[in-house]
């Protein structure tokens, strides 16, 4: 820590840090706090209450949000399963196939969605779907989500994979396991922490996505983020804050889980 270029000694370090933290977290805190507001106002504090949480589940908007939430869950689960499977296969191929022609290109292709601006992917997906005459709806959302979830699932899986030496599979095959058995009985269990971590990350990324979803969803089909956006356009009601806070909670839980699982897996080695 006794570095000569200790960042903390730079002039204005404290001010910049505080500004960043405030800009990042103050809105989240405000939303979370006001979701417990008793009054209808979104600016004046009227005492603590759970009214808006009750309203989310029983109020006039409840059926709309419920349908959207179910759509979101279906899509997130399916997209995460598909993306994780594809990412697992890709990670195995990338780390076990040795050096092959186009390895760098493959790597770039897998991770491309991380680098392309999301709005470009959104427009491209929409154009693609209409070009092949695919009716927009739940299925188009799912396909688009699978694609952009792959790199998020790939990163933890591939990190895990790289820490597993191939002698384990060789030992399995030396002990009369077919290559398939060596994969399912030895490699796959060793990869599990990475796969779980990748799944959770993909799940939450899909659950939270707004931009691409908004482009490729058909008329009348909503996910939770697009439904929230739709409501906000008619004015912000405190129940939106309650939903947002719930989603924030779910996100925090999943991201923490993903991190914890990835970490225990690392420790075991």
């Amino acid at each position, binding site marked *: 820590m006794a570095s000569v270029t200790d960042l903390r000694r730079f002039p204005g370090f404290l001010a910049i840090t505080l500004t960043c933290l405030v800009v990042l977290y103050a809105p989240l805190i405000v939303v979370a706090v006001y979701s417990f507001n008793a009054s209808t106002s979104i600016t004046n504090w009227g005492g603590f209450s759970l009214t808006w949480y009750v309203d989310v589940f029983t109020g006039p908007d409840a059926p709309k949000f419920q349908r959207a939430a179910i759509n979101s869950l279906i899509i997130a689960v399916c997209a995460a399963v598909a993306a994780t499977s594809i990412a697992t296969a890709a990670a195995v191929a990338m780390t076990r196939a040795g050096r092959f022609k186009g390895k760098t290109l493959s790597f770039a292709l897998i991770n491309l969605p991380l680098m392309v601006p999301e709005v470009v992917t959104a427009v491209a997906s929409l154009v693609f779907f209409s070009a092949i005459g695919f009716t927009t709806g739940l299925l188009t959302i799912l396909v688009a989500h699978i694609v952009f979830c792959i790199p998020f699932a790939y990163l933890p899986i591939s990190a895990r994979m790289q820490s597993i*030496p191939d*002698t*384990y599979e*060789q*030992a*399995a*095959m*030396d*002990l*009369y*396991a*077919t*290559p398939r*058995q*060596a994969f399912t*009985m*030895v490699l796959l*269990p*060793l990869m599990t922490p990475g796969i779980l971590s990748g799944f959770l990350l993909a799940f939450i990324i899909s659950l939270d996505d707004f931009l691409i979803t908004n482009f490729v969803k058909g008329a009348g089909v909503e996910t939770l983020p697009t439904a929230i956006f739709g409501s906000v356009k008619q004015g912000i009601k405190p129940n939106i804050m309650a939903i947002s806070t719930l989603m924030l909670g779910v996100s925090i839980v999943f991201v923490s889980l993903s991190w914890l699982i990835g970490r225990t897996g690392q420790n*075991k*080695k």
Partner: protein
Amino acid sequence: MASQDIAVSVDQVVKHYGNFTALHGVSLDIRESEFFTLLGPSGCGKTTLLRAIAGFESVSEGHILLKGEDLTGLPPHQRPVNTVFQQYALFPHMTVLENVMFGLLRKGWSKVEAVRRGQDVLDLVQLAEFAKRKPTQLSGGQQQRVALARALAPRPEVLLLDEPLSALDLKLRQSVRSELKALQRETGIAFIFVTHDQEEALTMSDRIAVMSNGRVQQIGSPKEIYEAPVNRFVADFVGETNLLDVEIASIDGGTASVVLPGGTPFTCPAATVLDPGRGHLSARPERIRITAPGDAHLDAVVTGHTYLGTDIQLQVRLSDGEVMSVRLQNSETTSVPEVGQTIGLQLEEGAARLLAD
């Protein structure tokens, strides 16, 4: 053909990696129930040969036969051969017993029989009480024994061991050596043991193949390898030796007459038929006696001592500047010459050998 008592026959095996050749036509026969060691410096191709026998590496040319049957093209899981890996590669998500049973279950044993056999083998390596533990909860020496048990459980025709002791500390390594040797005798399975430690090879093996640069230099019993090396490389790599540049007067069959530095004639066994000219005389440091200067084979000046515990090693210099070492047993009665003193060196007849390069 006497192939029934040959376990593995390696026949003219060549292995290329791109344009690098790791094995240049290696031929070996490993007998049934034999402790056979592949000994050689790092990078000489020992692991490559072992992996070729196990099936992890294809051979570019030649054949490997197991009990007379060609293994070419057979994948690892169809070869009745098991390996003890250098880093053990125990499956971390399985218990010790599950690790040992793995091969048995894949071979189609019933669960009950596999459990019984697994426990028997764990008994054999004295780890019965650790059956329920995970490999990470064991010491290095215990993990090594689990790896051994796992590879022995399916009763392979041949057991391959790639430097299995290198991850253990010195003291443990020495006790594991005799255990391993006893286990080999008890099971009667042929062991092919890879090491670059010559002491390990000499103490454990029935026969040793000394390799260098992808070629077998010599195959023989530890005694043959140590006392009758065929060339300079083997003499130098196995144990310690003095290599003297000598003039060859005549060679007759296996015996050569040479002229030592300083002009004394000397008769010794010769490794291969050499043309008269110059050659190398190998004399082990412990096979040289110290006498009074003048009428000995060689005269030399003592330049230093090294204390080795059991022995004392003298560094001496001959009149032509060549440096040699001589070992004296460390005991009450040994008189150690002073540094600077001139002494006579008497080479034991029959223990010094003329070698090809």
